[in-house]
């Protein structure tokens, strides 16, 4: 693997927190590399530090040791080059859908007209045409997450970090959102780091799956996925992969 092709990388990241009950080691020497336009899925059980890892990649949390490298440069704080889609949507309740999507552009002082044109493009892309003037509380969970994805996309980041974006949705919506995400990604390729605890979701979306252990979080194994997307949940190769990962996951638990 040539280093020039690496978009974002974590190098030996460790992180611990001190609570009343002592110190908890959350991440222990985690290293990984993500290639440009690769869809990497980090799969792990609940409470394994995946979210902390993602926050380190985003620059929201500083690691205790190790570093995050983006385009060969060290990351110290969050930036518009890395978009984050949060599990709880993190939409601004006082802004309409359109203003939420255009948020990153407004931060950069882009003129209103231009801003709204771009926002409209992504609102259309995620299938929310007609909801531009709605407020988040008027939308369903799936729609909110679409807004969140559009918001990240509109900012044109180099890397998209997605933190269990569909975990709060019901199964039906989840399937359709996964499908939609894939089609958006196919239309506008980005480097994606996608966190999930759902094996099927991981296999359905990923180019490569990184399996994490329970606390302290370390990388246990990697599974490259080569079959063409969109994949079929009932394919033999899909089920095989699922079985393989499940076995490892159970060992990890």
């Amino acid at each position, binding site marked *: 693997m040539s280093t020039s092709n690496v978009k974002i990388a974590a190098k030996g990241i460790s992180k611990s927190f001190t609570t009343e009950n002592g110190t908890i080691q959350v991440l222990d020497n985690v290293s990984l590399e993500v290639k440009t336009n690769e869809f990497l899925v980090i799969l792990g059980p609940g409470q394994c530090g995946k*979210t902390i890892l993602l926050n380190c990649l985003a620059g929201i*949390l500083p690691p205790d040791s190790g570093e995050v490298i983006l385009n060969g440069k060290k990351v110290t704080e969050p930036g518009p080059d890395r978009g984050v889609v949060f599990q709880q949507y993190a939409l601004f309740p006082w802004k309409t859908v359109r203003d939420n999507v255009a948020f990153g552009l407004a931060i950069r002082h882009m003129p209103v007209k231009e801003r709204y044109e771009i926002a409209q493009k992504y609102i259309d892309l995620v299938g929310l045409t007609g909801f531009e003037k709605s407020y988040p509380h008027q939308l369903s969970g799936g729609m909110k997450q679409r807004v969140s994805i559009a918001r990240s996309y509109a900012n044109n980041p180099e890397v998209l970090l997605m933190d269990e974006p569909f975990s709060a949705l019901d199964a039906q919506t989840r399937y359709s959102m996964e499908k939609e995400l894939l089609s958006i990604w196919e239309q506008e390729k980005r480097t994606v780091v996608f966190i999930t605890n759902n094996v099927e979701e991981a296999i359905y979306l990923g180019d490569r799956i990184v399996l994490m252990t329970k606390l302290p979080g370390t990388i246990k194994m990697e599974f490259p996925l080569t079959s063409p997307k969109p994949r079929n949940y009932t394919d033999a190769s899909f089920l095989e992969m699922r079985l393989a990962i499940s076995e490892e996951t159970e060992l990890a638990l």
Partner: protein
Amino acid sequence: MSTAHASALEAPATSRVKGYWKEYNSSVFSLLVFLLIWELVCRLGFISRFQLVPPSEVIVVMIEKFWTAPPDGATLFTHIAASMTLALVGFCAAVVVGVPLGLLMGWYKPVMVLVRPLFDAVRPIPPIAWIPLAILWLGIGIEAKAFIIWLAAFVPCVINSYIGIKLTNPVLIRVARIYGASNWETFIKIGVPSAVPMIFTGLKLSLNAAWTTLVAAELLAASEGLGYMIQMGRRLARPDIIIVGMLTIGFTGALMSYVLTKIESRIASSRRL
């Protein structure tokens, strides 16, 4: 997830004393700075000493007041005790009446429809305005003063209990109904317990209101108490006594809300476990 309050998690688990010091050193520092500025403003003549007594003198008077009764007729402890008694009597009466009323208003529509308009109409009337009526109805003993405090403390009790029970999860109510609980049983067993956290917030606001209405209540025939102390300080043109009275109200009030917050968080954490 835990990114939000990482800073709180990062506090090192050192010895208790050191921990307390770390928690409060900034408060102590800030109060010292406050006193220093106050002292300087007085000493450097930015403000006439008739208009503001420097803190050094206030502290001397405050310390003296712990055992001397003149000129206002009682020691600081007597004043604090009298005020505390008054505030607590009014507060307890407010809780006893206000919480059930709020709960009933939230649960039984007819109660709400009947009581709400009166409650809304009485609420904006300042407690001091009731003094003459309180005298007419209750005389000049502790009852009338407690009534004035009760009026102020009563409002947050009612409002918070009302909101608390209104926010009861409807699913729980339906479950209780399915198991054949009567409306009253559901109210007692589901509605009331689920309103407890809101009620607690109400109690805190209510105690605050009770404490801040104290001075108004002690305008009514008091012979001791912090409000009375301020009153005497005025009649005797002793700004130092007035400021000691004000600061004591401030300190005691801050202490009371601190203690209540601690109790609340203890109860909240035991509930979580």
